[in-house]
């Protein structure tokens, strides 16, 4: 790996000699490893337990999504985006649909916007719940996993009721929604909100003040705001480093500007702060959902979109705040029914780059913690 620190010198202790002059141990972690969240392969150079350097080998899940896009129509490509970050499929769909809508210069009707916000925020919570469970599991706390999965189940039930799928939902269409909401969506969502609020306290009870959790996460995988920006890190990881930046506020999309919510930030940029930021995001998501579900306007759910989607010649970059960070779509249209080029800017891919900087000089166990805290989904890293 390279030294990405030339611009922003990081104060990392890089030992020049190994302990007792023993051989450097090179360990291959993954691609089959319980804690690499899929098929990430990390080649670690160790001095005893200390990480001297590491290199990520990725691409095991590469499916050539961008190439596929060039051979599908805009509509046909929509389900494919769900398969990138498969734990946050709704966000992926939102980003793609909005990008194409922008290219078409149409806007989804307000009712669709509200439903989109609700589902996306629910999805953000589901993604964070999955993150919390697996992250805690990596650090050795096995119980939170079952708690979070129990509650994530309720979100997936709502998805299933709405669009028939639980994971790769394909919830949105270019121009709005395909399905009118089912009777009782509002009620289900409200029930869920009141159900999950105490559950979040429950997760926090297990971890937030747990001494071992604090020791394992505080000061681990530190990254300063400056370095985070230089490395292009986005999402909760960036916010935990003290950069108060959220695309929902900075460059509002959907109708997030109508909602009142805060951007939780951390101070130290360590694993614990990232944990706190995500826990706070749970609550902010709940706030947004509560505001949205009470105010879903009546009206059409689909904008006036031609049956055959042929955006005019041009290119567009649109990004949204996915649970993992900035998820961007760069679409080049040549005026035909198929995109000339679609580039996905995956948050996990860029965030994963920070792994080396965050892990150098730390211990093996911290690598696990940092992989967990980066919240990567290999489907999105590799596309």
């Amino acid at each position, binding site marked *: 790996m390279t*030294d*990405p*620190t*030339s*611009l922003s010198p990081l104060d990392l202790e890089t030992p020049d000699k190994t302990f007792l002059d023993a051989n450097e141990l090179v360990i291959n972690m993954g691609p089959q490893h319980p804690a690499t969240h899929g098929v990430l392969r990390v080649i670690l150079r160790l001095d005893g337990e200390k990480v001297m350097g590491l290199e990520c080998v990725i*691409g095991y899940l590469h499916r*050539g999504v*961008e*190439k*596929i896009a*060039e*051979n599908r*129509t805009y*509509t046909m490509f929509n389900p494919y985006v769900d398969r990138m970050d498969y734990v946050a499929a709704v966000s992926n769909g939102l980003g793609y649909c909005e990008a194409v809508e*922008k*290219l078409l*210069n149409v806007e989804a009707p307000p009712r669709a916007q509200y439903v989109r916000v609700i589902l996306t925020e629910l999805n953000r919570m589901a993604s964070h719940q999955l993150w919390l469970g697996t992250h805690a599991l990596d650090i050795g706390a096995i119980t939170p996993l079952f708690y979070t999965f129990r509650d994530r189940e309720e979100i997936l039930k709502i998805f299933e009721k709405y669009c028939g799928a639980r994971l790769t939902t394909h919830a949105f*269409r*270019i*121009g*709005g*929604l*395909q*399905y009118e909401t089912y009777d009782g969506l509002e009620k289900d969502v409200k029930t869920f909100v009141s159900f999950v609020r105490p559950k979040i306290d429950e997760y926090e009870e297990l971890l937030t003040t747990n001494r071992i959790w604090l020791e394992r996460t505080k000061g681990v995988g530190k990254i300063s705001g400056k370095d985070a*920006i230089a*490395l*292009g890190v986005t999402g909760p990881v960036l916010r935990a480093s003290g950069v108060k930046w959220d695309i929902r506020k900075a*460059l509002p999309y959907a109708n997030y500007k109508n909602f009142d919510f805060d951007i939780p930030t951390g101070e130290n940029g360590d694993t614990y702060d990232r944990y706190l930021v995500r826990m706070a995001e749970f609550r902010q998501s709940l706030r947004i959902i509560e505001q949205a579900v009470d105010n879903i306007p009546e009206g*059409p*759910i*689909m*904008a*006036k*979109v*031609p*049956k*055959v989607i*042929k955006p*005019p*010649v041009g*290119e*567009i*970059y649109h*990004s949204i705040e996915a649970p993992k960070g*900035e998820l*961007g779509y*760069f679409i*080049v249209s*040549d*005026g*035909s*029914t*198929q995109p*000339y*080029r679609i*580039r996905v*800017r995956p948050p996990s*891919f860029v965030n*994963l*780059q920070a792994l080396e900087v965050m892990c150098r000089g730390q211990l093996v166990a911290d690598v696990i913690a940092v992989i967990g805290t980066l919240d990567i989904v290999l489907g999105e890293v590799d596309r």
Partner: protein
Amino acid sequence: MPDETKSPASPPPEGEPKPTADRPATPGGVKAASSGSVQSETKPAPDKPAAPATPPKAVAGAPATPAAAKPAAAPPKPAAPVPTPWDSPMIARLKGNYGSGIEPLTYLGQNYMVVDRSLIPEILQVLRNEEQFDYCVDITAVHYPKREKQFDVLWILYSFPRNERIRVKTQIADGQTLPSSVPIWATTNWLEREVFDMFGISFDGHPDMKRILLPDGWKGHPLRKDYGILQQDNEWVQINLGIESGQ
């Protein structure tokens, strides 16, 4: 690819790229290219509206509400926007320094500038250090096989202090390299590797220019338009099974 006909000012790199003139021209060439070299069966005729193959697909994604169901009643063509010049103090400054090498434009409210290849290292440096574009969102490329300068390479930049996102775009020919921006934005390390992996565009001075997503032994660069999606399958079947692929 060498017989590019539409390009008005092909030889001089210093000359105006004239995107406004170039842009409408490219799609036609591109479509011909993609339908010719990639595969023709999935690609409908480009300019005929509602080709017979497309309506079923469109219906699948069609709206449920009748209001929007009117087929092609309001075609997007009339509203099709065109890139307009983009003006701002920053542009004025850049223009002052670099003159005609920069072509700032706005399309659908998004600003971008087409920069001459020779100015790229300097412009990126200036954007990072003086104009506070401290976050490189993405680097990507687009392949236009019919053009003489086959590749558009884009830097998507964002400035935290200004809350502004721009794109910097340049055109390079096949085999031409670009300066690596890893010293400017650390994040571009993997992004440049991905561009190299997918398009075969090398970046000079990159610390570790090798494939990232594809295996090291992969042949070709898949996101080039002349790289068919069946190519790899055919080759694999040929080598490993010794028969023609049924795909």
